[in-house]
C-alpha cells in the first residue's frame, strides 16, 4: 500500500506537497489541502496522479492545487485549481468540467422553522412541481426564435428583465450573473438547441434544491452582515448548472482541443487535459463560449429563484418583502476566469481554472459586493442530501495561496455502483424522513447513489478549509426539505 510519507512532503497539518520528482513532466509541484486522515483515501483514489498531471500544463504557475474534497475526475481531478499565465499558458476545458458554472446560491428568509414545519411537505411538493427537474426534463420557459442568444449574453440580467427576480439579485451574484467577453457565435448550434428546452430546469444527479434552517452560527457579526440572524432561520439552497447547453459546449471544445494539442505541439500525460494557448483562436473561442454557458447557468438559477419565491408565497402566504427571500450570493464552482493575481510580488494576469472549487475573494476585493467588503466574499459549501451545508467567507490567505479559491462540497467517496449495493433508494428515503427531512425526488433509485454515505463528510472538508486559513466558517445549516431530479 502506498503511504503518504512515501510520496508527499508535509508542509504542515493541512498542506501536503507533491514534489516535481513524483512524475516526469511536472512543471510545478502539487499542493493538496487535506487532513492526515483524508490522505489515505486520496492516495487510494489516485487523485494524486491527477494533481501531478495538471502540473504538466504549459504556463502553470506556483502549484497544481487540490482542495480537501478532491476526487478523481477525467484529466483534472474534481476539487482542483490551476492557474496559467495568459501570455504563455494554456486554457483547458477539462479544467472547468462538463457542467460549466455548476454553482450554488443561498437565499435567506424572514421565516423561522416553527412556521414552516407543519407545511414542509406542501412546500416541498410545490417546489418539486414548480421547478422542472430530472433527466430529460423540459422547462416551462418558451424562448422566441434566436432569443437564446440574449440569454447567453445577458445571463441573470435576461431573467430579471423577463420578470424572474429583481435587480438586487444581480448585485449579489458572482460576475453579476453576466460574464463579459462572451460570444454566442462561438457556441454551436447543438449547444443552443439543447439549451432552449432546458432553461429553468434543475437537472438530476447531485443537483438539488434544499429548504434548510440555520443550525449553528460560528461568527455572529459576519452572519448578520449576510442576513443570517439566528438559529432556526429558514434558508434555501439551489445547486445546479448549465444543463445540456454547457455540457455540449464542453464536449465541442474538448474535441476541438484534442486537435489543438497536435497543432501546437503540446505534450500531455493525459488526453483529457487537452488544451490550447490562452491567446490562440481556439483558446479565445473556448473562453467566449464557456462564458455563454456560464451566463446560461446564471439565468437558470435566477429563474429557479423566482419560482422558489412563488412557491413560498403560495404555500406559506409569505410573499416578497414579508418573506424576505433575498439572495445572499451565488457562486460558481466549475469555471475558468481571467484574473489578476500577485505572483512573486508582481501582478500577473492569469487564467484560473476552478473545477469543483469556489472563488473565495477576501475582504476589500473590488469584485465582491460592497456590503460584503468588510467580511469577504460569501462561499457556500453544500453537503450531501442528509447532512449539513456550510456558509463561509473568503480570506486574504486564500488570495495568497490558492488564487482566492476554496473547496466546493463534500466530494464523492463511494462509486455509484457500490452505493447502490449498500442501500436502496427506499432505504435512503426512509432514513432521511426519519431524521426529519422531507424528500421529493424524481428518481427513487437514484437516491441510493446520492446517499449521504456515498460522500465524504463535508464537515471534515470545511474544517480543513477553515483551519488551513483559506476560508472562514460563518454558519451551518441543516436540511428540512429536499427536491431532486
Amino acid at each position, binding site marked *: 500500500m502506498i503511504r503518504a510519507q512515501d510520496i508527499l512532503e508535509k508542509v504542515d497539518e493541512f498542506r501536503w506537497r507533491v514534489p516535481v520528482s513524483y512524475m516526469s513532466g511536472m512543471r510545478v509541484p502539487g499542493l493538496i489541502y487535506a487532513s492526515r486522515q483524508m490522505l489515505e483515501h486520496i492516495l487510494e483514489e489516485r487523485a494524486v496522479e491527477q494533481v501531478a498531471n495538471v502540473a504538466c500544463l504549459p504556463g502553470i504557475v506556483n502549484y497544481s492545487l487540490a482542495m480537501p474534497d478532491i476526487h478523481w475526475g*477525467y484529466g483534472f481531478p474534481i476539487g482542483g485549481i490551476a492557474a496559467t499565465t495568459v501570455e504563455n499558458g494554456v486554457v483547458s476545458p477539462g479544467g472547468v468540467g462538463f457542467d460549466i458554472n455548476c454553482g450554488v446560491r443561498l437565499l435567506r428568509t424572514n421565516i423561522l422553522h416553527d412556521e414552516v414545519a407543519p407545511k414542509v411537505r406542501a412546500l416541498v411538493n410545490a417546489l418539486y412541481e414548480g421547478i422542472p427537474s430530472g433527466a430529460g426534463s423540459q422547462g416551462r420557459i418558451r424562448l422566441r426564435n434566436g432569443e437564446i442568444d440574449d440569454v447567453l449574453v445577458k445571463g441573470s440580467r435576461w431573467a430579471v428583465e423577463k420578470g424572474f427576480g429583481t435587480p438586487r439579485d444581480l448585485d449579489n451574484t458572482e460576475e453579476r450573473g453576466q460574464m463579459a467577453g462572451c460570444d454566442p457565435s462561438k457556441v454551436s448550434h447543438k449547444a443552443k438547441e439543447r439549451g432552449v428546452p432546458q432553461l429553468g430546469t434543475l437537472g438530476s444527479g447531485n443537483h438539488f434544491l434544499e429548504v434548510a434552517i440555520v443550525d449553528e452560527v460560528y461568527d455572529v457579526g459576519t452572519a448578520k452582515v449576510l442576513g443570517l440572524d439566528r438559529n432556526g432561520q429558514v434558508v434555501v439552497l439551489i445547486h445546479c448548472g448549465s444543463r445540456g447547453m454547457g455540457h455540449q459546449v464542453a464536449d465541442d471544445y474538448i474535441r476541438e482541443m484534442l486537435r489543438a494539442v497536435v497543432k501546437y505541439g503540446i505534450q500531455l500525460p493525459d488526453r*483529457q487535459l487537452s488544451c490550447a494557448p490562452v491567446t490562440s483562436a481556439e483558446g479565445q473561442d473556448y473562453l467566449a463560449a464557456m462564458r455563454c454557458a456560464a451566463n446560461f447557468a446564471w439565468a437558470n438559477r435566477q429563474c429557479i429563484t423566482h419560482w422558489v419565491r412563488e412557491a413560498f408565497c403560495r404555500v406559506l402566504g409569505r410573499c416578497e418583502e414579508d418573506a424576505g427571500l433575498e439572495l445572499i450570493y451565488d457562486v460558481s464552482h466549475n469555471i475558468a476566469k481571467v484574473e489578476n493575481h500577485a505572483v512573486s510580488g508582481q501582478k500577473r494576469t492569469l487564467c484560473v481554472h476552478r473545477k469543483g472549487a469556489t472563488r473565495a475573494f477576501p475582504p476589500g476585493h473590488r469584485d465582491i459586493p460592497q456590503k460584503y467588503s468588510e467580511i469577504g466574499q460569501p462561499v457556500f459549501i453544500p453537503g450531501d442530501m442528509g447532512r449539513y451545508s456550510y456558509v463561509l467567507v473568503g480570506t486574504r490567505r486564500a488570495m495568497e495561496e490558492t488564487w482566492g479559491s476554496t473547496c466546493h462540497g463534500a466530494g464523492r467517496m463511494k462509486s455509484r*455502483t457500490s452505493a447502490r449495493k449498500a442501500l436502496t433508494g427506499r432505504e435512503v428515503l426512509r432514513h432521511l424522513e426519519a431524521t426529519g427531512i422531507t424528500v421529493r425526488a424524481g428518481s427513487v433509485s437514484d437516491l441510493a447513489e446520492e446517499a449521504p454515505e456515498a460522500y465524504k463528510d463535508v464537515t471534515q472538508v470545511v474544517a480543513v478549509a477553515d483551519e488551513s486559513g483559506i476560508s472562514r466558517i460563518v454558519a451551518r445549516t441543516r436540511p428540512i426539505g429536499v427536491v431532486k431530479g
Partner: protein
Amino acid sequence: MTGTRESHQVKRFELLEHTADVAMVAYGKSLPEAFANAAYGMFSIIVDVDTIREVESQMVTVKADDVEMLLVEWLNQLLFTFEVNRLVFKRFDVREFSDLNLVATCYGEKYDRERHGSKLGIKAATYHMLKVDPKTNQVRVIFDV
C-alpha cells in the same frame, strides 16, 4: 448492473466502479454490435429501457477522426437526440461502420416520463479511459453524470 438479452444470455454491457461518474463496458460479436450495446447500456442508465416500445425510427449518422472518438460521437449524438428530439431508443441497427463513420437506424419512441421513468441524467460520454478493442469487440466509456 448488467443488461442481458434473454434469448441468448449474452452480456451486452456492464457498469463498473467509478467514484463520481458511470463507467461502462459493452460487448458484442463485432464492433458494430458493441457500439449498439453501448447505446443500449447508455439508455438503460437514463430510463427504464424495457418500457421503450419500437414505434418510431430515426437514422443517425456520425463521423469522427478515429474509432474511439467515433464511440463518443455516437453516444453523444444519441444524448442530443434524447434531449432535443425527445426520443428514447432501445434497438440499434448499425448499417455502416468504419473507424471514421457510423450510420445506424435507431428504434424507439417519444420520451414519456410516466412510462419510461427518469433514472439518471448523463451529461456526456467522455474521452476518459476510452477504449475500443477490435480484437475482443469490447468498448469502454465513462459517462459524466
